[in-house]
């Protein structure tokens, strides 16, 4: 795990250090060479690259990624301050995915020949063909601008729920959260439906399902207790991957809805060549992914006690 992060940190550092020289972004166009040198020294850019890397690594371990060139605040602090907003839409999107994806997939897999199943599958192919920025634009224009059902953009009123400051505590907050979350969830729901359906179709052919049916297990128990439980391993794996995918796609959703999360921060920082934020974001997200993978591994042993870590 630490190895992965070390590799990622090296790649992130060396690649981001190639991105345009931030010195020229901070100074006026015709700055005298002495001033350029001075700023370079201030940022530590005059040292050889590998020395810069070790300094970067040492500081990164202390959570210090430098100050944002544009916001003049510590990069990691800035990301942390935007993190709750991102997590809000990710969590709601994940809930939608779990409900929609599993319900749709179980139904389509258990009764593959019914009309509704075919419709579900048709929608799921359509779902994976949709660019998420386009869903966002269509929602904004037709639901917000034309019909006025939802606010156009931004984060709503923030309230306190169970001691956490979140916009999920207020009605206005929910109104703002809903569209970005649905936008984020659509593709995921489609993916999960397809996966759960494939697993269900395979499981439903098994002997033990026939036996359970013969002994008179109710349909609901049969589907959710007997069949679904046995395909949970691949489903949980995919959920882990999708969670990462969701976090990555917040960059787009947040940009479209002007949602003040860390995804929008990343895109803004890329456009401003704000190197500290870009590298802090990438490493922060990498740590997040490593943690998610770890949790998924633990879940395996919980779902299937035969699995040993």
């Amino acid at each position, binding site marked *: 795990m630490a190895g992965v992060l070390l590799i990622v940190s090296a790649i992130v550092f060396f690649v981001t250090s190639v991105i345009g020289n931030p010195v020229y972004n901070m100074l006026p166009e015709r700055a005298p060479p002495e001033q350029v040198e001075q700023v370079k020294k201030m940022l530590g850019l005059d040292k050889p690259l590998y020395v810069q890397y070790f300094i970067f690594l040492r500081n990164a371990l202390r959570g210090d990624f430098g100050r944002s060139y544009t916001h003049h605040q510590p990069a990691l602090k800035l990301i942390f301050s935007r993190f709750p907003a991102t997590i809000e839409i990710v969590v709601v999107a994940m809930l939608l995915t779990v409900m929609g994806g599993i319900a749709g997939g179980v139904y389509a897999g258990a009764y593959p020949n019914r009309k509704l199943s075919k419709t579900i599958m048709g929608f799921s192919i359509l779902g994976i063909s949709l*660019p998420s920025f386009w869903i966002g634009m269509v929602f904004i224009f037709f639901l917000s601008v034309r019909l006025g059902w939802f606010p156009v953009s931004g984060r709503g009123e923030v309230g306190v729920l169970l001691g956490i400051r979140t916009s999920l505590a207020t009605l206005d907050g929910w109104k703002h959260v809903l569209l970005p979350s649905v936008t984020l969830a659509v593709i995921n729901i489609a993916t999960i439906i397809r996966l759960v359906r494939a697993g269900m179709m395979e499981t439903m052919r098994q002997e033990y399902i026939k036996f359970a049916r013969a002994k008179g297990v109710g349909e609901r128990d049969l589907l959710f207790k007997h069949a679904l439980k046995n395909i949970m391993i691949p489903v949980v794996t995919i959920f882990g991957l999708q969670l990462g995918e969701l976090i990555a796609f917040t960059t787009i959703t947040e940009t479209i809805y002007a949602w003040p999360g860390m995804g929008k921060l990343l895109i803004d920082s890329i456009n401003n060549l704000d190197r500290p934020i870009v590298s802090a974001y990438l490493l922060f997200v990498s740590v997040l992914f490593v943690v998610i*993978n770890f949790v998924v591994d633990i879940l395996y042993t919980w779902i299937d006690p035969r699995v040993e870590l």
Partner: protein
Amino acid sequence: MMLQRIAESDFFYHYRRSATAIVSSFLLFFIVFVALLGPLLTPQDPYALSNLHLANAYKPPAWLPGGELRFLLGTDQQGRDILSAIVYGSRVSLFIALLGVLLSSTLGILIGLLAGYVGGRLEAAIMRFADIQLSFPSMLIALFLMTTFGRSVVNIIITLTLIGWVRYARIVRGETLSVRKKEYIEASRVIGYSDIHIMFREVLPNVLNSVIVLSTIQIGTFILLEATLSFLGLGVPATKPTLGMLCSEGFSVLYSGLWWVSFFPGLYIVFIVFAINLFGDFLRDQLNPRLR
């Protein structure tokens, strides 16, 4: 005789009986037709500045009040015909995605064959790297690479290649491992065929089915990925607008009510990717039932 073989094949039998397959290949045919002959069909060359007149700007689609028949899907803020822009944009989008798939599959197949056939430390190292890369969303890797490389058509294709090879390498390596132990491979070795010959002439044809299925899906994925990058302003340069780029330009006027500028290019992306995914689904069921 070739035609007869195709007509009698199992694949063609299923093809004729599958409505999805026929519909989707018809759609794909249409898309390729439009892309190839596009410039001959469009009413306007959207990038010849002499064709743009501000008097034609902000025209809605033809069926809405104020619309004109010669601008079927309306015009943008510069008086550019949206329909023509879509046709031209689809050419760039498809070109990028197809070349990306071609390069990433070539790279992935080579690496996968090598890893599966040679084995040992090399294999372990390659697969470890592949696993790490796969644990990161491709969107994020693409953002990162494009930020570094800067926006250009060539850079997008490089980025897609660097993202795409992993899936090919994994599939090809897996299948190579299972094929490697078969008797006919041992037989070719006994006859004295070289490793290169065995890898490319004996092993490769047996893993090609999965590669074709994966490639179909990848074209769709790459079109979406490129569109998203271009939408964020990290993809193609403004001089080579793809469908995603058109959406991005249209987004800036969305709030002023010009929905058609971004809506139709996006709709065409959905249309293309949907057709590809439909066909990919059929191919997967036919060529590789195990991948279901």
